[in-house]
């Protein structure tokens, strides 16, 4: 494999992409899913996660063009050059992928397969150059005989991309070294050191987010059920930062980095992700650690480091006089909060493997528990 000279790579693991325009050769949703599938190829072998934006600038801008199209490399009509892409970086075209619309883009290999070319070009957008291994996806010449149904990256491709970003984070269902303390059932759920990225209610259930997975726990069952986030919400990134249910709207808001998404049931709501700064956060706030909706007061508390903001859901704006110290108004909790949700009139805060049950009326911690006490290990 090769990287680009100087080894340019993204310094963040969560990247945005935007499909700027479409080829007329395929239905739009076929283009959308080809690009999504091509990104997933790289997501599965790295810590990288991708989310789609529908307007404005994105790290990876994807477009179709013919002949001269505004960058330094004109396309050449049908055949020969199929597409090109630019390595990571801050400049205008960095990360972008351009597809020659004088090719016949197809879902199969009757023409030029969009998924295959997109997976290759996105390898460039992430910092890979061409490989001289003819089995590799990053080999420069298009191979129409690739078995699409059983497509896999070659080891050369995996070695290349992991030389830039390392392997994916160990996920709870990865084969873990069996240790005496782990119980025979899903070891991750009952790992005594388990911590969560985010926790939220959803129509009477509780969602416990961790890396690329989510445990769904009904209050009527003992055992949680274990899913991959992408099985519900394919366009949601893994490793979310915070989540809360605005029960008055029947919507769960999910936060990652400086963006947030809205979900009703399992439906992603249109017009998202949006920037967290549209909620009124100052530019100094780069991410949210935890969030909870107080249905009595119709206020949402956002926790960032050792402080919190209060957001008025009716006025849809931040209350004045914030941020305040978390420890001041939630004594015994924190200082840092990973996640929080509300059940039975209590706030359940999570910090690492510790959970604090907090009575918002008495304004005190009533129990200190293990984070995974809800899994009845």
């Amino acid at each position: 494999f090769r990287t680009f000279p100087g080894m340019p790579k993204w310094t963040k693991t969560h990247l945005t992409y935007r499909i700027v325009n479409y080829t007329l050769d395929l239905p739009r949703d076929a283009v959308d899913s080809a690009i999504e599938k091509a990104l997933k190829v790289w997501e599965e072998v790295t810590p990288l996660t991708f989310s789609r934006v529908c307007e404005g600038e994105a790290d990876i801008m994807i477009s179709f063009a013919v002949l001269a199209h505004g960058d330094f490399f004109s396309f050449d009509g049908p055949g020969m050059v199929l597409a090109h892409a630019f390595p990571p970086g801050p400049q205008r075209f960095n990360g972008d992928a351009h597809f020659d619309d004088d090719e016949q883009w197809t879902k199969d290999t009757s023409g030029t397969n969009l998924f295959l070319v997109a997976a290759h070009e996105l390898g460039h957008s992430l910092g890979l150059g061409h490989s001289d291994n003819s089995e590799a996806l990053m080999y420069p010449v298009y191979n129409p005989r690739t078995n699409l149904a059983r497509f896999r990256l070659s080891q050369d491709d995996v070695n290349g991309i992991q030389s830039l970003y390392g392997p994916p984070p160990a996920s709870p269902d990865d084969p873990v070294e069996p240790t005496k303390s782990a119980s025979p059932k899903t070891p991750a759920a009952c790992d005594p050191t388990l911590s969560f990225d985010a926790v939220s209610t959803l129509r009477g259930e509780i969602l416990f987010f961790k890396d690329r997975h989510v445990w769904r726990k009904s209050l009527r069952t003992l055992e949680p059920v274990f899913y991959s986030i992408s099985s519900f919400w394919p366009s949601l990134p893994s490793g979310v930062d915070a989540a809360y249910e605005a029960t008055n709207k029947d919507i769960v808001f999910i936060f990652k980095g400086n963006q947030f998404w809205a979900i009703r049931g399992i439906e992603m709501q249109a017009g998202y992700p949006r920037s967290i700064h549209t909620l009124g956060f100052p530019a100094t706030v780069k991410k949210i650690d935890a969030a909870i909706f107080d249905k009595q007061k119709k206020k949402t508390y956002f926790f960032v480091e050792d402080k919190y903001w209060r957001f008025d859901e009716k006025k849809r704006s931040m209350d004045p006089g914030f941020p305040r110290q978390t420890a001041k108004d939630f004594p015994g909790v924190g200082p840092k909060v990973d996640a929080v949700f509300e059940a039975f009139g209590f706030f359940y805060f999570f910090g690492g493997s510790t959970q604090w049950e907090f009575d918002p009326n008495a304004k005190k911690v009533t129990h200190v528990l293990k984070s995974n006490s809800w899994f009845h290990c």
Partner: protein
Amino acid sequence: SALPLNGAARDTDDTMDLVQHYLEHYYNLPKDTKQFVRRKDSSPVVKKIQEMQKFMGLTVTGKLDSDTLEMMRKPRCGIPDVGE
């Protein structure tokens, strides 16, 4: 040349253009070697043909054999194989 090229001569010319563009764009052949490409044995061009043949997993002959020309005509990514 002032005279219209006959078929064979035109094909040769097209092939030389293809080779010229390919080696310049994907293998960093300096653009000022234009006059050498027609003389296929010039060392900068031979070296670049060998570099391309090696990268693509072809037999390294330094000559524009049919495998090499066929590979140059295959659909591919527009990003250079070596260099910036």
